[in-house]
């Protein structure tokens, strides 16, 4: 049993996008979609005052309290024993509830398979013997560090212990993500300013909300009413006794 996580050092990232390419190549990600991303955030401030820029390097956060898992009606999306949030393709009906419920936008509907696809920390690769995901392997500046939080000797653990780390989370939305950001504190603040985390981003789409708020209680009430009605009739039948059925 492991607890896989990733750290991304935003001070080291040069925004080359090799990680995104490697991921696309490894998984045959469809055009216009991605499992991970590097988004340049434009410089802020005016010269000669502080000019800050960074890259939003992101992927599925493999959260400990994932909103996508509770949004999935069929159980296709689940948290595995090694801390990864995975999609069981056979169970996925491609409803996209989880896509809407992920506040990071880490999921997409694969137009070919019509099922949901996302980063799985390269599970298949790792099962086949690789030590780290494709994006980590190709990173030219070692900005991505992958490892097991259970392993206190891992590079990941050492980095997390010896440096200040932040996660893309706010007081309003904290899904206990497992992607940690190293580097200047300002970077994550900038990312959050450009990609604000809001509660409504963790909600599934409207049909699912109608289901939870209206359909579920109303149908339960109908069944309850019907059951109570026949129970009442049955109790009365017991009390009254039966007439002879033969005429």
């Amino acid at each position, binding site marked *: 049993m492991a607890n896989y996580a990733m750290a991304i050092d935003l001070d080291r990232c040069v925004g080359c996008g090799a990680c995104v390419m490697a991921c696309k190549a490894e998984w045959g990600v469809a055009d216009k979609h991605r499992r991970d991303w590097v988004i340049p955030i434009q410089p802020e401030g005016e010269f000669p005052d502080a000019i800050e820029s960074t890259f939003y390097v992101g992927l599925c956060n493999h959260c400990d309290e994932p909103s996508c898992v509770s949004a999935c009606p069929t159980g296709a999306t689940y948290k595995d024993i090694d801390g990864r949030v995975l999609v069981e393709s056979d169970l996925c009906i491609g409803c996209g509830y989880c896509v809407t419920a992920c506040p990071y936008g880490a999921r997409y509907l694969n137009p070919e398979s019509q099922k949901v696809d996302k980063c799985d920390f390269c599970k298949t690769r790792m099962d086949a013997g690789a030590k780290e995901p494709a994006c980590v392997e190709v990173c030219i500046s070692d900005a991505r560090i992958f490892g097991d939080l259970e392993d206190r000797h891992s590079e990941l653990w050492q980095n997390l212990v010896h440096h200040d780390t932040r996660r893309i989370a706010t007081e309003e939305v904290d899904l206990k993500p497992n992607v940690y950001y190293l580097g200047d504190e300002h970077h994550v603040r900038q990312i959050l300013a450009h990609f604000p985390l809001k509660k409504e981003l963790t909600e599934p789409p409207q049909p699912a909300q109608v*289901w939870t708020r209206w359909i579920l209680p109303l149908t339960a009430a109908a069944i309850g009413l019907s059951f109570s009605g026949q129970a009442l009739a049955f109790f009365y039948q017991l009390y009254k006794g039966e007439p002879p059925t033969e005429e």
Partner: protein
Amino acid sequence: MSQHYNPDQFSVEVRAEMARKLIKKHDVVMVTLHWFNALVWFFELMTGMALIASTRYTYIPSWFTDIIVGIFNGRTNLLYFHITIGVFWSGILVVYGVFGIRTYLTKFYVNDLRMDGDDFKWLVLKPLQILGYRIRLPEQGVYNAGQKVFAWLISICILLIIPTGFIMSFHLGPLWLIQWSIPMHYASVMMVVAGLIIHVYMAGLMPEERPAFFSMLHGKVNELYAYENHTKWWRQRRKDEERFLEELSQSEGWGPLPRGKPRNR
């Protein structure tokens, strides 16, 4: 005592004779369809309830889900089973609809299930009667108003359940349609369940309805039950029979027989 019994109308001997005489109410194909439906509903309901994994969308306790998932050795098998049975069921319903359009489908929905004023009165009075009030109910046709309402409910819900099931299983249509199909599938199934509880109680447990239950096994009810519970149907049936016998007595020699023995309703 049954609700339509009029002590002045028939002598004890006639009543005893009517109680012995069995008359046909359901055709074999409809009895078969009924129990086939019951079986399908049992399996689809059990597997369907267990397919909803997130507690956000269901009140079904997880231990129940775990048992069903355990029986099927995983959710994937469960899903495939649910879809296979559902597709097979839809196919059978289509076969019934296509080949039985004249003999059953039209007759059932146009004649047998048409609601009239008596039916609405019956719906108000029947619950009071069940609760012990001594009430004479309005006369009913081959199906009583409760059965008619249930038949309409289940028919409308099936018209929602099957298309939404296909949309979900085979990813048909745009994303919004798939997203709405899931709660619609659930809602229509649950509405049927609400009706099914009453249907099962009335048919399975109510002493007055015993003949109705057995008629779903061998297709027949005794004439006294038909007279007391489905008076309009009984009267029509008797009228048809008399007309047939009269026509038969008028025909002489050889040639075409009068138009068949009247159908059961």
